[in-house]
């Protein structure tokens, strides 16, 4: 369905655009029909950039993104509109996703005026109620309200309902529950899982490992714009190979066991070498070779359905 082919994105940064920041470099990724892939990375790893590139909110510097074999970056006017009929996104901050001065359900009206101008009221209300029920909300309680009168969880489910109004096949969920309270998080997650059963493909972007595990079959770990490990979620969690993934697994605070393992090295300098492995500076492995420093490791299959980008395959 959706295919990333060596996609890169570079920004000019610094007060006068002196330096180049490789937000995303050379990413290859695939999401098939009805599949949930979680993209896991810390802040600054480029995961949101990837999400925005799929949604055509920012341009692509190199490589191509294809959706059902059509190149996304060349879509214009009517084709772009059709693309949005099938691909939608939900963002992190529910309160910033709504125009503060208008009612929350205005997002539905925008969809109607742009995508279903001809539809008469009866059909539209029926379609609207169906998608609201699909996200487990009672129209009478939630319609005709200002955003600040609804909870974060409700607002996010509203956006999912908005996407369901279209004939959506692919949803980009960019950190959609990180701003929600623990208690309402799970409802939204369960909703995503239900939608998956009904054939919706989802790219679930998050920084939280446990969330990624809960809902996705496949996962990709992102670090400084590169996919360092990818494959079946169980395989990655049970037998993490890349040193960065291993460090993440140890550092994540869990409720079932206490922290052990070495203290993280805090003196990490900013790696300015763009050639070698991006994790070179902080990599704890003792026998780092010249390859690590000079050549960027390529994703190769360490075991079935489990790829890793590390010359030493993490064997310390």
């Amino acid at each position, binding site marked *: 369905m959706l295919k990333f082919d060596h996609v890169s994105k570079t920004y000019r940064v610094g007060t006068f655009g002196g330096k180049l920041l490789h937000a995303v470099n050379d990413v290859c990724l695939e999401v098939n029909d009805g599949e949930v892939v979680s993209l896991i990375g*810390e*802040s600054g790893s480029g995961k949101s950039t990837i999400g925005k590139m799929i949604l055509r909110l920012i341009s692509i510097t190199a490589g191509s993104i294809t959706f059902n074999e059509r190149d996304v970056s060349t879509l214009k006017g009517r084709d772009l509109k059709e693309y949005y009929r099938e691909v939608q996104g939900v963002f992190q901050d529910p309160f910033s996703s709504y125009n503060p001065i208008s009612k929350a359900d205005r997002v539905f009206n925008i969809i109607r005026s742009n995508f279903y101008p001809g539809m008469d009221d009866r059909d539209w209300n029926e379609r609207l109620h169906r998608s609201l029920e699909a996200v487990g909300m009672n129209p009478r309680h939630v319609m005709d309200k200002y955003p600040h009168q609804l*909870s974060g*969880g*409700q607002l996010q489910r509203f956006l999912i309902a908005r996407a369901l109004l279209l004939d959506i096949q692919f949803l980009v969920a960019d950190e959609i529950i990180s701003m929600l*309270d*623990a*208690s*309402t*998080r*799970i*409802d939204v*997650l*369960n909703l995503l*899982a239900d939608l998956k059963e009904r054939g919706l493909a989802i790219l679930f972007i998050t*920084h939280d*490992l*446990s*969330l990624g*595990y*809960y*809902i996705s079959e496949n996962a990709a770990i992102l670090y400084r714009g590169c996919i360092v490990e990818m494959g079946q979620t169980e395989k990655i*969690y049970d037998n993490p190979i890349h040193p960065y993934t291993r*460090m*993440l*697994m*140890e*550092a*994540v*605070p*869990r*409720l*079932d066991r*206490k*922290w052990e393992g070495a*203290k*993280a090295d*805090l*003196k990490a300098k900013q790696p300015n070498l763009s050639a070698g492995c991006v994790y070179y500076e902080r990599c704890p492995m003792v026998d780092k070779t010249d390859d690590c420093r000079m050549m960027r490791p390529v994703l190769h299959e360490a075991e079935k359905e489990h790829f890793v980008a590390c010359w030493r395959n993490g064997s310390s």
Partner: protein
Amino acid sequence: MSLRVEDLTVYYQTLRGDVRALENATFSLADGEIMGMAGESGCGKTTLSNSLILLTPPMRYIKGRVVLDGQELPVSDIDGMNRYRFKEISVVPQYAMNAMNPTRKIGKMAEELLRSRGIDAHRVLPELKRRLDLVELDQDVLKMYPIELSGGMKQRMVMVLSTLMNPSLLLADEITSALDVSTQKAVAEMLVGFRDHKIVKSIIVITHDISILYQIADSILIMYAGQLAEKGPTETVIHSPRHPYTKLLITSLPKVGAKHDVTQLEGIPGKPPLLLDPPEGCRFRERCPVAFEKCVEVPPFLELDPDHFVACWKEIESNA
């Protein structure tokens, strides 16, 4: 060192009247104890921590006493509290990332702050340097401006600054939420290090992330809609909580290894009440699965097991 808080009640003034953000908070903290304070957004944890050190408008003191090391803290007297701030009680604020004056060298700012509090900056310098090594910060950070430091470095610098006078109580407000997982672990462990090196006597760690508290806190206080729900040793609160809200909260956290198609987790239906006009009695009763007619009265915060306090009539009755 010991902290005793009795019936502390603080409201927020707004146009539509007072938001009753904190109601009759009563708890105590032993010497050397790291207490985690957790709860969803708007439960009053930041109000409680702010009122211990900087109770300024729009917060309004209603009633309650705070006793630190046997001395009563004049929390409602903004100027009177100055004597205790920084020396007896200090804070690592939520906004630590931009807590330092951007146009001043960090060393210079620290010096002026110390001098303004009547402390000879020169005498403290060696100790300051020693603590920079403790938090793995290079000493020439003092000659740099805050803009030149990364998020994690600024966080640790503020931790060192706030604890320079060896306060007996340190309030650490959401100090890990803005950090990456790896720096988060390091900073949290450093906080414990501050207590172990006797830099501070005891710490209150405020966060919405309970799994961090499980790693570093000795005891955990759970709050809900401005009321204290439960306080107890970390192990008991996490693995055998007694307050219905804590139980639902812990079960709704996805643990690594929980799969959707295997174990479907449950959220808590409904949403926290607006505190402008909160429901009578226990404020969780509208969402509580075991609520019954007694819950219309405010449940007392009783010690049902040794050092395990719960504010819930169901539990009180089952205990009797």
